[in-house]
């Protein structure tokens, strides 16, 4: 009787690279054996019991804070602020009480920075939106005069704020 014909596969299967990985896996197991199994971290005794309630309170609080403000009310409020900001800039630039006085860079920077910051971070209104609300005459009044900023002020500003002075043309 030819028993070799009766030798069937046992029906077991192996991962494709089992024998190739075997040596690596044994090496890994030996190294892992010297490592602690846990981290030693602990938690407050009732932490997980309270967690869900704390989390859902936080979610509800966050959703309450982000109430929708009616668009028309917000737009009108922002337009009002924008107009006031433009008039403020105009006052600083024109300085009607003393038209011949020049505005220093420091004064101009403070006002301009605050207004620019407001426009960047607190409103979606751009200058086009504000300009739409002003007449042509009003816009013409808000113009920079050529001699408002003296040469001395320009040079001082550049020297204070320019990192690479080699860029200055002598």
């Amino acid at each position, binding site marked *: 009787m030819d028993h070799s014909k009766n030798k069937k596969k046992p029906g077991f299967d192996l991962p494709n690279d089992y024998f190739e990985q075997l040596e690596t896996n044994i090496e890994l197991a030996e*190294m892992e054996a010297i*490592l602690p199994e846990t*981290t*030693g*971290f602990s938690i407050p005794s009732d932490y997980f019991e309270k*967690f869900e309630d704390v989390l*859902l309170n936080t979610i509800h609080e966050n959703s309450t804070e982000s109430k929708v403000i009616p668009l028309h009310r917000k737009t009108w409020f922002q337009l009002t602020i924008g107009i006031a900001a433009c008039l403020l800039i105009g006052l600083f630039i024109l300085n009607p009480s003393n038209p011949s006085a020049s505005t220093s860079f420091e004064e101009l920077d403070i006002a301009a920075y605050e207004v620019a910051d407001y426009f960047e971070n607190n409103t979606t209104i751009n200058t086009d939106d504000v300009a739409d609300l002003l007449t042509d005459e009003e816009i013409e009044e808000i113009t920079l005069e050529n001699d408002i900023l003296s040469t001395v002020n320009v040079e001082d500003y550049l020297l204070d704020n320019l990192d690479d002075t080699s860029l200055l043309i002598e």
Partner: protein
Amino acid sequence: MTGEKQLIASLQSNDSKEQAFRTLVSEYKERLYWHIRRIVISHDDADDVLQNTFIKIFRSIDKFKGDSKLYTWMYRIATNESITFINKKAKRQLVSTEEIQKAAINSLTSDVYFEGNEAQLKLQKAIQQLPDRQQLIFKMKYFDDLTYEELSEILETSVGGLKSSYHIAVKKITAYIKNETI
């Protein structure tokens, strides 16, 4: 409908979202907590990140398409939130992320929520020596006991690459511990 699909359907329905979310949190909070904790080390930081993770899950669950398992998706969010947390902390303090991690490990000895022994402390220091990616792979494979296939789905890296990284990480850690012991 399988259990997971049913849960997802409930989470994506306005009527049952909150109740389904409570179920989700109840089931996964511990696993996600410990995963986050192993990355950020401190309990208080882990608490912050876990909250941020679940808030993100709550807000994004409507966009979950089921391309991956729910747990894999959540795990990925938790991992990203942990890394973002460390990066932000480093930026605020004007230091590197390595310095943030080093400081966290060094403060373990005085941390009320660390009850480990010297060997466990040494292990944390050994892990901290690894590059960020290797640290993550080691922690997720060794402590979270994820399979390479699960890791591959979460980290979007090949199984072969993960196996190499893990092997190298274990080698470096054991070498560090042996050197420290001498």
